[in-house]
């Protein structure tokens, strides 16, 4: 909702909080801010939830953390992922396996030049399949189960209803955690409209099924019209939605009522698991302004909800060499003196290949090189500024440099993982 979401603009005035207590004057830092390691964090937690804005490399980071825990700690690790890139899914053997947990074979590690230690398991989240499993578990009898599975409203909810992804991701996590023996489960969260949606999902699901409105909907149709309290709602709802649709809705909820207790209890357990001491959250972001604001807001919310913010991973950060002042001076000098420099350098190049002695061309290349450096420097400096202004600094603050190629296999994941490890 708009009211809950502080606009970026309003939040931009960092140094002067709108209201006292609205924003902390000092960063929300723990005593050991930035000094911890991912190595230590993953060694002490059982559940890692990777979250953050879309498009920052959340899935890849989650997978890299899982691979590292398996390789370095020798742990039995499950990476529960939502939407991996095709090539990464292929590399992990995730293609077409859906909800089933699947072990990455030792050969895949050897092929990537790694010594297999521990066990790496992967699974993909299939919302529809997970919902169906949930219904099978909670349905009181075979007939109710079949009727729910065939109900058009149910099919809509399980297949299309966006918020149901959030809930089902957390529900799957609970199920796996309580029924299996992984040392560590790394969860990649689904893309949401709002990064907080999945945190609220269990509570929202419990509220939904225990709502007074739900009871109104499932009273037999005749008694609704004589009930003074509910009559205005039904007369308007009838006009808008049509009686038949309302009857469909009622039937769906009557079926669901039989599973009510199980559902509410379950979603409460799922909620408890999120705040459990064994669970930690890793917020992933880039240092671009818009995603970073979103990530920061999310980190603040985790802290204020007393959830464990274990780490912030800053991904795709431009390399350090772009920020040196010497580089600026050199680039400026190359730019200003490109004509003169090209003449002086031409003999050197002609020695390599006579075709490259064209001084105009050398000058042009020198100019492009210098401009490119200065261009990227603007972005790199902006990134550093953003990092320095972070309002929340957890124990672990990891920076991953920009990789010039895509990460799509185990070796790539380890390359990324090593950056966040120590």
């Amino acid at each position, binding site marked *: 909702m*708009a009211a809950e979401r502080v606009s*970026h603009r309003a939040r*931009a005035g960092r140094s002067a909080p709108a209201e006292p207590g609205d924003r902390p004057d000092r960063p929300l830092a723990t005593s050991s801010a930035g000094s911890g390691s991912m190595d230590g964090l993953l060694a002490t937690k059982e559940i890692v939830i990777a979250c953050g*804005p*879309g498009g920052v490399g959340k899935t890849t980071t989650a997978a890299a953390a899982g691979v590292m825990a398996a390789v370095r700690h020798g742990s039995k690790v499950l990476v529960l992922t939502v939407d991996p890139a095709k090539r990464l899914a292929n590399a992990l053997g995730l293609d077409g396996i859906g909800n089933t947990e699947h072990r990455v074979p030792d050969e895949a590690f050897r092929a990537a030049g790694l010594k297999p230690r521990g066990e790496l398991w992967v699974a993909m989240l299939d919302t529809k399949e997970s919902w169906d499993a949930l219904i099978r578990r909670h349905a009181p009898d075979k007939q109710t189960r079949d009727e729910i599975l065939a109900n058009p409203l149910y099919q*809509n909810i399980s297949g299309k209803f966006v918020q149901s992804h959030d809930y089902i991701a957390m529900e799957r996590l609970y199920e796996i955690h309580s029924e299996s023996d992984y040392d560590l489960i790394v969860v990649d969260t689904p893309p949401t409209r709002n990064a907080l949606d999945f945190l609220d999902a269990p509570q929202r699901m419990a509220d939904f099924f225990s709502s007074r409105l739900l009871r109104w909907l499932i009273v037999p149709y005749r008694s609704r019209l004589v009930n003074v309290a509910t009559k205005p709602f039904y007369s308007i709802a009838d006009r808008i939605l049509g009686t038949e649709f309302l009857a469909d809705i009622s039937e769906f909820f009557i079926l669901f009522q039989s599973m009510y207790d199980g559902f509410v209890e379950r979603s409460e357990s799922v909620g408890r698991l999120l705040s459990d001491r064994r669970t930690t959250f890793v917020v992933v972001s880039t240092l671009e302004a818009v995603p970073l604001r979103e990530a920061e807001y999310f980190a603040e919310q985790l802290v204020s909800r007393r959830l464990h913010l274990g780490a912030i991973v800053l991904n795709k950060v431009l390399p350090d060499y772009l920020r040196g002042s010497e580089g600026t001076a050199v680039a400026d*000098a190359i730019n200003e003196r490109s004509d003169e420099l090209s003449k002086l350098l031409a003999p050197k190049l002609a020695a390599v290949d006579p075709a490259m002695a064209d001084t105009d061309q050398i000058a042009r290349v020198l100019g492009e090189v210098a401009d490119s450096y200065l261009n990227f420097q*603007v972005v790199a400096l902006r990134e550093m500024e953003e990092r320095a202004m972070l309002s929340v600094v957890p124990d672990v603050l990891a920076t991953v440099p920009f990789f*010039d190629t895509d990460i799509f296999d185990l070796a790539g994941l380890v390359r990324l993982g090593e950056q966040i490890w120590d």
Partner: protein
Amino acid sequence: MNPLLDLKLLFVTGKGGVGKTTVASALALLASQRGKRVLICEVDAKGDVAGFYETAPTSFREREILPGLFAMTMDTEASLREYLKLQLRIPVVGRIGPLAKAFDFVATAAPGVREILTVGKFCYEVRERHYDLVVVDAPASGHIVGQLAAPQAINSLVKVGLIRTQTDWLLEILSDPRTTGLVAVCTPEEMPVNETIELAARVRDETTVQLSAVVVNRVLPELFGRQEEAVFDALGGPGPLARLDELVGGDAAPVFDAARLAVTMRRTRTTHLDRLRQGIDSAVPLLYLPYLFTRSHGLRTTRQVAASLGEELGF
């Protein structure tokens, strides 16, 4: 000329982080600069649109923020109130709270109901000709199809009732390629390209809305031609580089490393661009926006992006 801005209703979508709101804001700004009366509406209510115009937060009631450019934020409860008043002539003054709550509840169980209030509001603005163009900063590509297909979803679930009768004119507006279009924004990276290709197929199969353009954001400049690249490689070799260090009196290696990074980045991105071109119907125009090496991301950036879009559209 690309007739994109001659449409009446533009939905702008894209994977998170590709610059969807930037492009929506810039498209609306460009159209208003060209003399159109434009409404931009933010659906996600994150407050980003206000940031891109550096203006106060927007609300459901539209407000003129620049000459000819109006902005609003979608709010389904306010939309329901307006809908009941205008379409159904149901007097609900003062009782909207509980009703909205009830409606919210039904909408949670019956997907499409909430979406229809959102899409319905835009179609209404188009039907009433309040604006020349309505630009919607729509949900991310994962959610847009559900929104655009809401009228059909409602049609299949609701057999009678007022909502059912309302879906017909919505479908008419959404299905007319001269009225409504979808703009998909992506960057030349692996996941955004995959998602855009997938989106194009889903929009074709599951909705009646046409994909009017794909905007490729953050395209890196090409530094060198082929022969120039050979010169670059030679310049970066140990002999010439050491000489350059002497001549400029400093370490030139980082400057060359940066250029090398830029070249590989662009090369990786080119392969994704090629995949995009192959994966999208050739009738759909691709508009390219340059990577912006700037410090800010406010109105100045929005103006810059609008200018680039204008060039791509042949203005």
